[in-house]
């Protein structure tokens, strides 16, 4: 294939990688404070997409939105997605995980709960909104706006990159510069000491879930704009994003960003070389290989140390 196509795929991969990075942050944050794999995060992501879709259905965009109108729609979609994602993540923590935490349940119990919650949530979405895949309403006229190394970037991709990077910068600020962020880092490092120092652990955990949910939900909306919205859409991107979090070093926020980018590129390159039907094999294979050879990830584990 031509070099041109290669650049096209590389850029596509980076765009996809931005989304994976944002979702991966959700996994990594929760892992940081709870040492828990939140399998149900993929459903948070899916609900974010539905949130954006619902909001934009209510708002019923004009036939051919353009200019400021388009920007407003996208922002509304993002906010609605984030709100849905945050709400689902909050409820999930409160209903499913908190009782277990109270009891000091073993990890296996957490994992099974997470799987159960994931099943419940995505099938509930299927029940509430039907099981067909849906397209987002037209928010703008999608056209080519940029050319990078001969690869075309359309508006959707620009929106994805801009909002994803914006969210990542914002999150980095929250984790490193705010009081909540220092609470999160403290709990990640040593929950007992943190609670002795007056950190309200329940609150920190709950807010960590919400932050992860906000990001995941917004990413869900962006994913929905790019692809379609359907109740099963969470699973594969979720797993891939999880792989990204592990790849970067689970618990490590910047690692999750790096891992997401890498996996996005690996995935589109797989499609480039072997074809669409092998798309998700790349993510899994990468995950297995990483875990075998460098289980602590590229940048090492733990929110507390490196974020």
């Amino acid at each position, binding site marked *: 294939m031509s070099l041109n196509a290669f650049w096209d795929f590389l850029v596509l991969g980076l765009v996809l990688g931005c989304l994976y990075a944002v979702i991966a942050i959700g996994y990594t944050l929760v892992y940081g404070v709870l040492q828990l794999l939140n399998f149900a995060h993929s459903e948070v992501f899916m609900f974010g997409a539905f949130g954006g879709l619902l909001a934009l259905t209510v708002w019923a965009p004009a036939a051919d939105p353009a200019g400021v109108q388009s920007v407003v729609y996208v922002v509304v979609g993002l906010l609605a997605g984030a709100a849905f994602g945050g709400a689902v993540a909050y409820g999930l923590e409160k209903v499913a995980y908190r009782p277990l935490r109270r009891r000091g349940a073993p990890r296996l119990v957490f994992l099974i709960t997470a799987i159960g919650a994931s099943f419940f949530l995505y099938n509930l979405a299927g029940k509430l909104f039907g099981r067909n895949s849906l397209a987002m309403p037209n928010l703008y006229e999608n056209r080519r706006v940029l050319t990078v190394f001969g690869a075309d970037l359309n508006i959707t991709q620009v929106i994805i990159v801009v909002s994803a990077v914006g969210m990542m910068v914002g999150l980095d600020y929250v984790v490193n510069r705010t009081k909540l962020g220092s609470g999160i880092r403290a709990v990640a490092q040593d*929950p007992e000491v943190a609670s002795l120092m007056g950190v309200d652990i329940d609150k920190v955990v709950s807010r960590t879930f919400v932050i992860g949910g906000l990001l995941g939900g917004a990413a869900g909306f962006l994913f929905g704009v790019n692809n379609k919205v359907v109740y099963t859409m969470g699973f594969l991107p979720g797993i891939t994003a999880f792989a990204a979090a592990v790849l970067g070093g689970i618990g490590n926020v910047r690692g999750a960003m790096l891992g997401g980018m890498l996996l996005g590129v690996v995935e589109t390159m797989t499609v480039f070389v072997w074809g669409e039907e092998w798309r998700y094999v790349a993510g899994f294979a990468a995950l297995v290989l990483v875990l075998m050879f460098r289980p602590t990830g590229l940048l090492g584990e733990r929110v507390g140390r490196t974020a």
Partner: protein
Amino acid sequence: MSATTSVNVRTARRLRAERWYQRPRWRRLAAMVALAVTMTLVTGAQGSHQDLFFALEENLTGVALWVWLALAVAVWAGREFLTPQVASAVSGSRALASGPLGRVREVWRADRRVRFGVLAVAAALAVLVPSGLDRYWQTVLVDQIAIFVLVAVGLNVVIGWAGMLDLGFIAFFAIGAYSAAYWTGALPVQPPMVLNNFAVIPIAVVTCLVAGVLLGAPTLRLRGDYLAIVTLGFHEIVYLSAKNLADYTGGTRGVKVDRFAVDLGFWSYEWGVVDAMPYYYLLLAFVAVVVFLFWRLEHSKVGRAWTAIREDEVAAASTGVDTVRYKLMAFAIGASTSGVAGVAYASKVGYINSENFVILLSVLVLAYVIFGGMGSIPGVLFGAAFLVWLPEALRSLVDPKDRYMYLGGLLVVMMIYRPQGVIPSRRRSRELKLARSGEVEGDGTTEPAGGRLS
């Protein structure tokens, strides 16, 4: 010194558990109302993609919402204002039930003959009753219940005994099924020699053993939750390969597989297409043999070593237990059981395609094991049989597509209120009890996840 610390931890845990009841009443009311709304949505109308708000509108304006709300408020009020009465009623009924129940349990534990008697009756029922069922249920019994019971018994070794979360168990089932297809000459690629289905069983066992070891050897050193995700990935890889490599596997179109047949020259028998019962007896024999072998395993050196690893891997290793070897052993034994089930499935149904092995099934089998009671063979037998039977029985009442939603909800609720399962293993429930009181960390897979926080 540390005795006092652990007492403090325990007290702290109990207090935290009860904090919920020290909060303002309206919070609990709000929770109940939220539950009622959720239940309305869960049991309500099926949504439609043409009108996204259809289900929401329908459910939240219907009568069902009010019924659920009334129920929720009634429960709340009962709990808040009638606590002593409710408590005494509960304890009263518990006392009533515990008298006879306790006696039954005593007899059960004390007398071997009772246990054998009950087992014999159960076995007789298992042999005799199905022949009286109608054809539909016979098919369900064989194609689904018997097969999945076998798979669940295998998964129980991995998760219930060795404490490893395997989310890709159906991958081995698929490997077994495709082995059967390959060695009986059903696949587009031809084997070096065509074998009888029965002869494939040992081959499938070995294939799955090898696959299990190949997957397990590098990953079993990982933390439990990583193992879960790696096995999930493994499943997807197997599934996608089965689907995409249609030139070798038949892909989604599928392939026809021969059925079981015996030909010893002087005597031959063929398991037919129409009648399910011969398959049933065959599978029953499989299950019985596997259960017997595993029962021995559980009460042996191997079973004890697994328990030790599950409880405290560090202590087990420094006591001389080769933890990796035992984990690998559990993995391989489970995998090969699943492989046998795969062979049986392919040979019974006579047709397989890649869609028989979706990831959903791996999670379902996990649900069966957990529902019945991890680590307890009777529990797992019951859990698999019941949970496979239930959706079939509810087919007319509940939309079959919704059943995974209920299953998911069931898992969450089980983990909160009865993590040990319906018929728990004694060791497991002890472990969970100890974990609850803060005595030990509970579960090998590991350390408590969020538990450290309290």
